[in-house]
């Protein structure tokens, strides 16, 4: 077990390095001089060389990469070309909102998706089963911004049940529990957009896995022992069906974060989405690289957590 955990932990290093390398090289290969873009072509040569020296853009690419990597390891993501603010400081007030949105939707879609999958498997071939399948096909094909806009139109603008914008009501003064409630109330719609897609994918997978397991010998044995049908399904069929589902959850984390960016823009959720967009439009490289590093880090860590949860659900991994 510890060998599996250690090996999995060791894989994080090359992955993070690879991601940094790809984005860093991509950004620096791009045509156009960032310094000239910043001054929108209005500066003179003296200004350009001053700015190049200031941001160390006059050094060879490899040296720049090395400086960047060592700085990142020390927690320094550089300063914004535009505002001169430390990138780290621009990210910290926003990262929490993005993580809240992404993680809560992963947790909700896991719970709902697996539960729906089991229910569908129990009713294999019946109405509910077919309904789950149809809905999951539909949601997989729907663009997330469209789902977001439809939910926004119906539940916020027409019915007025949920707020359309932000993380807290404007001018909200409360603190503690009331503040949490207010945030949750604002979270419902953005979370639903992400969870609708993810949970229906997971439901479909869980359903197939459990149905496949139900015809296996160990299920017949469990039934012969006189276990209740509920125990047979939860403890035997679902347990064996879960590992592939968990793999898929891990693989879709990147998808959830991508969806979160779009959803944040639509619901005015104060996360990293706006920052990505503005920094990419103004070619503020340190900010864009910083946000991408943080998101890549979050994706890698979540991947790691799902893989490590194998240890809990799959005894074969534990023994190795």
């Amino acid at each position, binding site marked *: 077990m510890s060998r599996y955990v250690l090996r999995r932990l060791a894989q994080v290093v090359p992955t993070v390095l690879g991601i940094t390398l790809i*984005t860093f090289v991509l950004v620096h290969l791009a045509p156009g001089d960032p310094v000239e873009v910043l001054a929108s072509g209005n500066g003179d040569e003296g200004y350009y060389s001053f700015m190049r020296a200031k941001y160390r853009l006059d050094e060879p690419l490899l040296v720049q990469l090395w400086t960047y990597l060592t700085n990142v390891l020390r927690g320094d993501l550089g300063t914004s070309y535009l505002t001169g603010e430390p990138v780290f400081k621009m990210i910290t007030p926003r990262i929490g909102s993005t993580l809240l949105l992404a993680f809560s939707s992963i947790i909700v879609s896991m719970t709902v998706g697996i539960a729906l999958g089991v229910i569908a498997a129990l009713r294999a071939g019946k109405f509910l089963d077919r309904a789950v399948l149809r809905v999951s096909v539909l949601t997989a094909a729907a663009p997330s911004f469209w789902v977001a806009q439809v939910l926004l139109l119906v539940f916020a603008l027409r019915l007025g049940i949920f707020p359309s914008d932000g993380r807290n009501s404007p001018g909200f003064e409360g603190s503690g529990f009331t503040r949490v409630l207010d945030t949750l109330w604002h979270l419902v719609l953005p979370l639903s957009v992400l969870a609708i897609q993810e949970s229906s994918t997971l439901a479909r997978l869980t359903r197939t896995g459990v149905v496949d397991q139900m015809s296996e010998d160990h299920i017949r044995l469990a039934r012969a022992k006189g276990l209740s049908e509920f125990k047979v399904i939860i403890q035997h069929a679902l347990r064996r069906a879960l590992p592939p589902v968990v793999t898929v959850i891990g693989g879709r984390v990147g998808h959830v974060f991508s969806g979160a960016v779009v959803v944040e823009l639509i619901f005015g959720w104060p996360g990293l989405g706006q920052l990505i967009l503005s920094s990419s439009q103004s070619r503020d490289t340190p900010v864009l690289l910083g946000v991408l590093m943080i998101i890549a880090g979050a994706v890698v860590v979540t991947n790691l957590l799902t893989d490590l949860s194998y240890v809990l659900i799959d005894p074969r991994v534990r023994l190795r």
Partner: protein
Amino acid sequence: MISQISDTRFGKLIAPIAGLSVWLIVALSANWLAPFDPFLVVGEGLRGPSIRHPLGTDLIGRDLMSGVIHGARTSAVIVLGVASIVVVVAFLIGLTSGFLGGVVDDVLMRVSEAFQVVPRFFLAIVAIAYFGSGVDKLIVILGLTSWSGLARVIRAETLSVRESTYVEAAQLFGSGTLRTIFREILPNVLPTSSVYLMLLLSRVLLLEASLAFIGLSDPGSISWGYLAGSSQAYLRSAWWVALFPGLAILLAALCLTSVGDALGERK
């Protein structure tokens, strides 16, 4: 019995193939089909669906139906372009990796893993921000970031076919490497990989739409995602600008996945 099963499989293919054909026909004849130039102001802004403008007009009074029709062309060009890049790269890498094995396989698979871990959406944002958002660039960016999954499927299929007796027999009869790959392995790899390709293309379509939605599309051509994105600011007063382009994307993606599902059904 066998014919019965393949009949239902055929039945499931009819609707999505018809849908894809409609999409392609609209894309090819957009100039004739669209009642107006999608860039031209032809009426009052933000008017709901009417006889003159069946899908309504946008903020500055451009005809939305013409926009959606021309959007079909943009999406079709992008999806077909990405498909051709992905197919070439994925088959090249997948077949080589699976057939040669050893160090080549190891290296190629590690590279494909690196591409799988980096979230494509963010990579595309960076690439578009720094290289520009022309349709041609978009195709290259999406193509070069989308091949890894398909390559791995092809590799896995190649591995399982490579050890079969008929491949051994072909080689015994003096079939060269290339001939074996094209005559024996490729035909057996095609079914599974085409299922995966269709699902992949639906995801490419959605990815491109999301990029266009947040404003990273080719300014020279109208796309569904761009239309939906431009509606965001006045969603409250003009639901139709958001509804119809999104619906077009949903239907197109649905056709692609349904073809994949129908092809992939167990025979």
